[in-house]
C-alpha cells in the first residue's frame, strides 16, 4: 500500500504534466487551425504511430544495433586507452589531448566522410560514429577512476608485497568500475542521438534517422513525428540500461 503511494507520488506529477501538455498541444493545433506541415496534432501522430508501429520497431532495432555495437567498440577502446594512460605518463600526455579533440569532433562533418570511405551500403560508418562519440567520456571517467586508488589500499597492497598485476586486478580495476559506468551513462544519450543523426547523411535506409528524413521529404510530417517518438524511446532504453548498470556498480562499492 505504502509502495503504491510512493510510486504514485513519484510518477503522478510528470504524467499529469505530460498529459496537460498534450491536451494543450491538441487544443492549439485544432483551435488555431495550424497546418500539419507546421505542427501535426498529437492524435494525428498517434494514428500514424499505430499505423507504422512494425516499421518503427524494426527501424529502432536497426538503429539500436548500431548504437550497441558502437558503444561496445568505443568503450573497449576507451578502457584500453585509459589503462595505458594510467600506467604511463607518456601515453597519458598523448591520449588526453587526443580524447579532448575527439570529444569536440562534429559528427555532422564526419558522417559524410565516413559514408564515402566505407560505402553507402555499410553500417560501419554509423557504428564508428557512435564509437567515437562514446570514447571520450568513457576514457576520461575511467582514467579518473583508475587514479582514485586510496593511499591506504596502496599501502596495504605494498605491505602484502602484491605484484603490479595483482594491484590492478584486485584494487585498481574494481575501484574504477563505478567511474566507467558513469562515463557510459553520460555517453549513452549522445550515442543514440549520433546514431540517428548519422543516418541523415544517406547510406542504408533501415534506421530511425533514415525514416524520419524520408517521411519528412514525403510531407508525411505526422509519420516523421512517429519515428521521432521511436528515437526518444530508444534513447530512454539505452539511458535506463546504463543507469541501472551505474547504480549496480555503485551499490557494489557502497556508494
Amino acid at each position, binding site marked *: 500500500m505504502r509502495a503504491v503511494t510512493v510510486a504514485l507520488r513519484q510518477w503522478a506529477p510528470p504524467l499529469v504534466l505530460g498529459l496537460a501538455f498534450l491536451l494543450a498541444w491538441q487544443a492549439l493545433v485544432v483551435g488555431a487551425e495550424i497546418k500539419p506541415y507546421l505542427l501535426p496534432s498529437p492524435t494525428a501522430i498517434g494514428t500514424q504511430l499505430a499505423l507504422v508501429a512494425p516499421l518503427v520497431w524494426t527501424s529502432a532495432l536497426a538503429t539500436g544495433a548500431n548504437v550497441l555495437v558502437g558503444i561496445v567498440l568505443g568503450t573497449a577502446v576507451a578502457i584500453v586507452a585509459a589503462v595505458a594512460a594510467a600506467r604511463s605518463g607518456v601515453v597519458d600526455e598523448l591520449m588526453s589531448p587526443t580524447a579532448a579533440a575527439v570529444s569536440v569532433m562534429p559528427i555532422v562533418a564526419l558522417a559524410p566522410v565516413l559514408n564515402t570511405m566505407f560505402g553507402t551500403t555499410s553500417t560501419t560508418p554509423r557504428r564508428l560514429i557512435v564509437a567515437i562519440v562514446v570514447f571520450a567520456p568513457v576514457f576520461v571517467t575511467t582514467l579518473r577512476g583508475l587514479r582514485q586508488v586510496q593511499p591506504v589500499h596502496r599501502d596495504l597492497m605494498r605491505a602484502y*608485497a602484491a605484484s603490479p598485476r595483482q594491484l590492478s586486478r584486485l584494487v585498481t580495476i574494481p575501484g574504477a568500475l563505478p567511474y566507467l559506468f558513469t562515463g557510459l551513462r553520460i555517453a549513452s544519450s549522445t550515442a543514440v542521438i549520433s546514431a540517428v543523426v548519422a543516418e541523415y547523411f544517406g547510406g542504408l535506409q533501415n534506421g530511425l534517422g533514415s525514416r524520419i528524413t524520408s517521411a519528412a521529404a514525403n510531407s508525411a510530417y505526422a509519420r516523421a513525428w512517429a519515428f521521432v517518438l521511436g528515437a526518444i524511446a530508444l534513447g530512454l532504453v539505452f539511458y535506463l540500461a546504463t543507469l541501472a548498470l551505474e547504480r549496480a556498480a555503485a551499490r557494489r562499492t557502497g556508494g
Partner: protein
Amino acid sequence: MSTPVSTTGLPPAAFALAAHAVEATGVGKVFTTRAGAVTALEDVHLTIGAGEFVALIGPSGCGKSTLLRLIADLDTPTSGELTVFGRSPRAAREAQDYGIAFQQAGLLPWRSVRANIELPLELHGVGRSGRTVRSTELLELVGLTEFAGHFPHQLSGGMQQRVAIARSLAEQPSLLLMDEPFGALDEMTRERMQTELVRICAESRAAVVFVTHSIPEAVFLADRVVVMSPRPGRIAEVVPITLTRDAAGRDEDLREDATFFAAVTRVREALHGDGHVRAARGVDVR
C-alpha cells in the same frame, strides 16, 4: 573459543631467525619537500622483543607513524640501521613477517567481509579451501561469523576495524603493526576493541607495534610505552608498564586499578616533558 588456538601459534621460523622482532639503531628519516628538508625522525634506538607489545605515543608530528612505516618498509630510513626479525625491512615485508592495520580500515568495498579477510591469503596463493578454513577461524576470533557475507559499507566503523584486524592476522604474523587502528572510533567501541585486542594478542603471541594518541590506550595495551617528542621526532622516554596481569590478560577492572592510573600519570609526565624527562633521554631508550 578453543578452535583458534591450534592455528594462532607463532610460526617456528620466527624463533629461529632472531630473538628480536624489531631492532632500530640510530634510525633517522628526512623527507625532502618543496619547502626544504624535514626531519621526521632522528636517532631512534629501539629494540622490540618477540611477543612484546610496544605502544608508540606522542603529539602529532613526532614521527611515530613514520617509524611504523619504516618498520613496514612503506618508507625507507635515510640513516641508521633497522632490522625486522634479523633481516632488512624489505626482506621482512617480502617474506610477509608482519600483518598491518591502519587508522582507516582500508577494506575493499566490493569484497565481502570474508573475501576481505582472505585477501592476503589470496595474494599469496593459498588455495580456496585453505582460505575458507582460515577465514572461518578469524571471523570467529573477531566475533563476526554471522557477517561473513556482508559488505563493508553495511558494517559499523568498529566492525570494519575488526575485519581489518582479522585480515592483519590472516597469515599468523609474528609481528603486528597497527597505526592508530582505533583512532576513528567512539570511546565505548574503542575500549571494547582494546579489550578484544589484548585477548587476540594473548592468543596469537605476536609482537605488536601500536601507534596511538591516547595515553590510557597505550597503558592499557602495552608492555612498554615509547614516548616520542616532535621536531625532530625522537624517543623521549620509554615507560615500562607493570600492571597486575592474570592468565586471562587484562580485563575491564584494570581500567579502574590504582596501578593503571599511576602508569597513566607516568606516561603523561613523560609526554609533557619536564626537565627530569629531558635528562633521561638517551639513557632510557633501550
